[in-house]
């Protein structure tokens, strides 16, 4: 029997105490695992959905709202902007590409996004079925939408007004599904894409009272916002300022807003992190108490081992090996529990179609979990190990 084997047996000679210690440690570690996973996934989701968009131009209001509504599709947009103003952006020499985004309708809570073919191209989307749209009222579904709604090419549906389910149905204007995108693991998966003109058509069909009215509406066509890519990074210096001062629109830089958002989320996770730290500290104390009392209980055993010739260092290592086992077991349990928490959060909050992808991810940041486990358990074992190191052999020899 080697030291690790011996430590293992000693550990499970007190099964309840050891199991409780593993559980306590594991809860703290699970909280940390969970926080790391959420932070990583949110960050990754943002990075992925930004996809090289340099600036978003839309109605004046909160720049954060513009980004959340236009890129991440989480919020409602601040308003619409005239199509002519967006078209004017294309003539700006600093601009490489302008992708219009028109929001306003949904189908079963999935947003119908009027745009151009440049939008799916931006995310490198490929088709799983059918083809891309070639005319208004044809739609291409994101992978999650197709899967959840059970729709495929050739089927029809009628959108509802608004961005959440339950709005007025546009009964006269049915969309036709012409294609389904392969999963891209991002925002595109939960969108229904169509031509910008579809959105106009639906609303003009719905609102226009006569041909003259329709003609007036066509004059005043709007989009919700435009995603803009620069020709050169230098444009970041002047383009947003130009938009903000010289037009009735605002320019919001996604990188900036997402950094602000992550910072705000960070304040929330700091509280959770402190809580996890407290849990770990409690667990460390509990491990300390367990090992300390183990050394006291086993004073005689340890003294006998010294009598049998075991050097003090080997006896101290026996205690550290017990702590090592606690750390290893708690790491495994903590990582597993953290992943379960994450999966539960994603499942119960239905976030799998939004920011978080759920499922098992093992980002390299998780290496901090076993490191913490071992640090806590071994630190807790230092004093008991020192006690074991100094175990008094003379006590064993007492003949009174």
């Amino acid at each position: 029997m080697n030291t690790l084997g011996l430590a293992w047996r000693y550990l499970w000679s007190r099964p309840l105490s050891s199991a409780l210690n593993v559980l306590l440690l594991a809860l703290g570690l699970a909280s940390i695992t969970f926080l790391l996973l959420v932070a990583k996934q949110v960050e990754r989701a943002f990075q992925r959905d930004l996809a090289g968009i340099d600036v978003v131009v839309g109605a004046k209001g909160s720049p954060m709202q513009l980004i959340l509504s236009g890129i991440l599709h989480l919020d409602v947009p601040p308003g619409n902007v005239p199509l002519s103003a967006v078209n004017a952006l294309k003539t700006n020499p600093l601009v490489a590409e302008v992708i219009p985004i028109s929001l306003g309708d949904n189908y079963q809570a999935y947003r119908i996004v009027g745009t151009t073919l440049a939008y799916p191209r931006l995310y490198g989307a490929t088709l799983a079925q059918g083809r891309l749209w070639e005319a208004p009222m044809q739609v291409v579904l994101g992978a999650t939408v197709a899967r959840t709604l059970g729709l495929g090419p050739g089927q029809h549906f009628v959108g509802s007004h608004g961005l959440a389910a339950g709005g007025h149905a546009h009964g006269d204007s049915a969309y036709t599904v012409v294609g389904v995108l392969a999963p891209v693991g991002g925002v595109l998966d939960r969108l229904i894409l169509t031509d910008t003109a579809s959105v106009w058509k639906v609303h003009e069909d719905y609102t226009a009272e006569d041909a003259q009215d329709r003609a007036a509406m066509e004059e005043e066509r709007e989009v919700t916002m435009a995603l803009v890519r620069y020709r050169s990074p230098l444009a970041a210096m002047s383009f947003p300022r130009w938009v903000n001062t010289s037009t009735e629109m605002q320019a919001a830089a996604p990188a900036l807003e997402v950094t602000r958002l992550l910072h705000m989320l960070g304040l929330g996770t700091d509280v959770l992190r402190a809580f996890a730290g407290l849990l770990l500290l409690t667990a460390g104390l509990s491990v300390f108490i367990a090992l300390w009392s183990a050394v006291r209980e086993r004073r005689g055993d340890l003294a006998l081992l010294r009598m049998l010739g075991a050097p003090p260092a080997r006896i101290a290592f026996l205690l550290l090996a017990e702590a090592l086992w606690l750390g290893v077991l708690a790491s495994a349990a903590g990582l597993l529990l953290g992943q379960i928490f994450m999966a539960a959060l994603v499942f119960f909050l239905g976030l799998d179609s939004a920011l978080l992808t759920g499922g098992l991810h093992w980002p390299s940041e998780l290496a901090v979990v076993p490191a913490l486990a071992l640090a806590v358990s071994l630190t807790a074992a230092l004093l008991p190990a020192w006690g074991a190191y100094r175990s008094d052999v003379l006590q064993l020899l007492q003949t009174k």
Partner: protein
Amino acid sequence: MIKTTGLEFAYPGTAAIRFPDVDIAQGAVLLLRGPSGSGKSTWLALVAALVRPGAGSLEVAGQNLVALNRVQADAWRARTLGFLPQKLHMSAALTVAQNLGMAFWAAGAAQDRRRIDAALAAVGVTELADRLPAQLSGGQAQRVALARAVLMQPLVIAADEPTASLDDDAAREALHLLQSSAQRRGATLVIATHDARVGDFFAGPSAAATGHVQTLRLPRLQGPEVAV
């Protein structure tokens, strides 16, 4: 085999204990007698190289113990001394065989199950190998502890009050086992005791086979109890 001259030991803040000189041969029996607190434990600790004498010379099995550092002393003890404590100290978490295996672990040696079985067989408890200490009777436990003491084939077997809390028959049996275990290996046997039955046993006919028996009488110390 065990040779001491002018041996002294002092616990911090107390007067030094002076031990009578001892010179016994390999295979002999030494009875360490004296009342509680007379320094029997301390003498055993000295001979086991657990503590260093304050003065005097101390040679066990040809080794000058005063010259050993702590690491060397531990290694020396592991291969030279077998110890049977008064309280048997078997780990409740381990089976009998595994408890014996602790001796290999302590000595940093590879586990040898055949030697464990042989040691258990020598004290007549082969069938107990896979039991837990809690399942043993007092007599069985003492046999197991003796098997553990002789597992590493020591040159010296030291027993601390082996007959305390045993009735006469059990005490005789325990002493007989100790004696035969030592004799089989030609080991020197040191027994610390204040039990008169031990002296009677080694003076009586049942011990006729034993070689030289020497008694080291330690007087009662002055002042408070010092041995721990």
